[in-house]
């Protein structure tokens, strides 16, 4: 499915490139900041093949090799880095994690769909689910058997591995115990001698005691080391067993999902419930029509109640848990909201700062003081403020209004979201502000002269000369801001538990399961790639507004 989409998009791009011709394509690539594609395009047009091949080597093959090397190194290193709290996941684990995250997402989507299925479709889906459940039964039994066997085997392996050590431990324990007893006896007998001896004898006795204490302590250490070794061995996870368990988990999870699907398609299905309620309504109506003056009120109430409930069921939805794709989308939304808020504050202030040295002087202390403040500090403050403005999000007009909006409504913007966005804004606006101020202040003197000769008024001068010439720098600031915002957002979400990538990471960290680290590593890539896309986007904007063909960083 995904592959098909990629091929389709690529085909469209190639078509567009062929239509636009070489120069436009190269230019578009340059604007998009995808310069590594340029040699391929040029090669396609047969331009200096040797040079293009060299460029392809440098800009495509080398990075690919670097990535492969990285994967290899990661694989090797991850095998070595292992603490008791967990193991650094290797690339394969991470890929598995990605798959599991994806499965979870699609399964929840299925459940949601199942909730809303009706008629023939529902019957078909139910049949599919039940059939799969049937198929799963023998598989499950087999997997359970495998797990039991693997556990047994692992236990045996462990036992044989531990046995010699345990034996050593036991013998040593006994030996040391004897030795200690002997020494205690010896000391006891020496004590009586020392008691009557002179000072030297007594001091010598202290020496003896000290020596024996040292011996005892050494012995204790030896035993402890042995015990730790045994414990470590026990704590070590058996790979065979882990594999069997992972298989079992996969099957058990699927079963869980199918069970819930079955439920969503029958008892919990919306239409089922409506039908059920309709039957009840019918019944209640019958009662109503047959009622006398004593019972009519009750009967009428019941009819009204049932009707209300049918209405509600009809508009109810499946309470779907947040899945990673949803969280990613919400995070991106959040970063943009924060970015817009930040820019809305930063750009006007930056312009004022650039225009007026006095204003700049007034702002400098604030910029200096607030700029280095960490998101961790802003967030609680933002949370308090957001919660104060929206005391009861379920009823507040603002959130109600937001939740009714066509596209945004889905993301349930709440105070935690707003607080995260505000934190993003507060942390990211500085780059934009400073850059805008700088850009405005550094307008070319010649351009100002043109404005003076033309006798432009304040506003025309601002909008026709100052802002356009400050734009490239302002956009460079915006680009930095968006990058900072994206970094800050993850931390903000983590703390505010606003549904998003940050919360996902925190939840994973809290899970502490064997696959949690792999999930987190996968999210690292998701975060990185989204950050990259955001940055590329800003580069495109930056290039579009940069009139002097100013170079932009990679």
């Amino acid at each position, binding site marked *: 499915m995904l592959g098909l989409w990629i091929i389709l998009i690529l085909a469209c791009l190639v078509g567009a490139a062929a239509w636009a011709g070489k120069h436009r394509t190269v230019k578009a690539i340059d604007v998009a900041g995808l310069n590594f594609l340029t040699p391929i395009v040029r090669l396609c047009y047969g331009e200096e093949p040797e040079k293009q091949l060299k460029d392809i080597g440098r800009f495509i093959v080398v990075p690919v090799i670097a990535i492969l090397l990285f994967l290899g190194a990661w694989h090797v290193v991850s095998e070595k880095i292992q603490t008791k709290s967990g193991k650094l996941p290797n690339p394969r684990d991470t890929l598995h994690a990605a798959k599991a995250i994806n499965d979870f997402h699609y399964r929840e989507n299925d459940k949601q769909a199942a909730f809303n299925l009706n008629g023939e479709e529902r019957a078909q889906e139910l049949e599919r689910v039940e059939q799969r459940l049937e198929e799963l039964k023998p598989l499950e039994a087999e997997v359970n058997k495998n797990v039991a066997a693997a556990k047994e085997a692992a236990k045996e392996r462990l036992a044989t591995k531990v046995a010699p050590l345990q034996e050593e431990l036991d013998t040593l324990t006994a030996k040391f115990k004897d030795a200690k007893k002997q020494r205690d006896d010896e000391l006891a007998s020496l004590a009586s001698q020392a008691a009557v001896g002179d000072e030297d004898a007594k001091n010598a006795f202290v020496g003896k005691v000290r020596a024996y204490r040292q011996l005892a302590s050494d012995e204790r250490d030896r035993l402890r080391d042995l015990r730790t070794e045994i414990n470590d061995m026990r704590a070590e996870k058996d790979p065979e067993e882990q594999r069997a368990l992972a298989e079992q988990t996969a099957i058990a999870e699927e079963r869980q999902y199918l069970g819930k699907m079955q439920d969503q398609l029958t008892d919990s299905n919306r239409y089922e419930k409506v039908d059920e309620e309709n039957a009840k309504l019918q019944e209640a109506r019958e009662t109503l029509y047959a009622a006398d003056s004593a019972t009519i009120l009750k009967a009428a109430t019941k009819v009204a109640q049932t009707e209300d409930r049918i209405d509600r069921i009809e508009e109810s939805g499946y309470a779907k848990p947040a899945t990673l794709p949803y969280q990613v989308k919400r995070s991106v939304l959040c970063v943009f909201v924060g970015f817009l808020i930040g820019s809305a504050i930063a750009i006007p202030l930056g312009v004022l700062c650039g225009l007026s040295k006095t204003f700049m002087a007034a702002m400098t202390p604030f910029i200096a003081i607030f700029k280095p403040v960490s998101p961790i500090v802003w967030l609680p403050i933002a949370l308090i403020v957001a919660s104060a403005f929206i005391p009861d999000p379920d009823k507040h007009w603002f959130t109600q209004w937001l939740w009714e909006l066509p596209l945004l409504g889905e993301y349930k913007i709440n105070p935690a979201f707003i607080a995260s966005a505000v934190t993003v804004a507060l942390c990211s606006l500085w780059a934009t502000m400073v850059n805008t101020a700088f850009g405005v202040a550094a307008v070319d003197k010649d351009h100002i002269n043109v404005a003076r000769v033309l006798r432009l008024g304040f506003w025309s001068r601002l909008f026709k*000369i100052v802002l356009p010439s400050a734009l490239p720098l302002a956009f460079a600031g915006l680009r930095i801001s968006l990058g900072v915002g994206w970094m800050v957002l993850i931390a903000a979400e983590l703390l505010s538990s606003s549904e998003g990538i940050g919360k996902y990471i925190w939840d994973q960290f809290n899970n502490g399961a064997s696959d949690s680290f792999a999930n987190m590593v996968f999210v690292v890539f998701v975060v990185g790639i989204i950050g990259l896309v955001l940055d590329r986007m800003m580069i495109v904007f930056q290039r579009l507004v940069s009139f002097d063909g100013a170079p932009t960083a990679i």
Partner: protein
Amino acid sequence: MAYLELDNVDFGFGPVSHRYEVFERASLAVEQNEFVAVIGFSGSGKSTLVSLLAGLLKPDRGQVHINGKVVAAPGPDKGVVFQNYSLLPWLSVYGNIELAVKQVFPSMKRGERRDYIQHYIDMVSLRGSEWKLPGELSGGMRQRLSLARTLSMKPEVLLLDEPLSALDALTRSQLQDEIIRIWEEDRRTVLMITNDVDEAVIMADRIVPLTMGPAAHLGREFPVTLPRPRDRATLNFNPEFKELRNEVTRYMMNLNEEAKSLTRSVTLPLPDLQPVLPGPRVRVG
């Protein structure tokens, strides 16, 4: 009283501690409808002169008059073609001219304005490049655009700061003719800065050299009495033309020698060290 007048003007840059005096007691008078060429070495203060006349800079002492009135502020009546073009890089060729036209003739109708702008674009042969950005133009094209923009404001006084320096010889002569034509058509007062004696002789009614800075002033004037229209092809064999050209060049070389001897006299007392010298770099502009 002359139409455009620089009256005993002192002007310097920088704070008192390290002040650089560009002009001392500089005076110049340009009659209405006259075409004056100012020539001078690089760094002698030619651009500063233009700025003073345009009102972009204020003299420290003395005054600038136009038509008897003191010049207090710049305005579209004093059109300047800046030495470095001063085009707005985010506006296209058309946009740059449009900005000026809109500002100077706010009541002009849209269609009329389009034709008006197009006329000036055509005038400097930029047709076909209307939508290019200044960054995509060659140096000469930029200079032409800058000229077109200034002309489009229909200024009373045209101040041209080396408007043709970046052009090849062919285009250059073409534009020279164009400027002359416009000048003759509208009979505006023109002050042109140039570094090319030939150009000055061909175009101007009068040539005024600027002495070497610091503390420059306007030197001996050379009226050009060659009849107009001046034909380039025949002019080269005109003895009056040759004479004038040689005279001006000699005068300029002398100025240069003077300046050199001045600086040399400063270096003399110094032993065999090679000092880094203050003062203007000497180059025939």
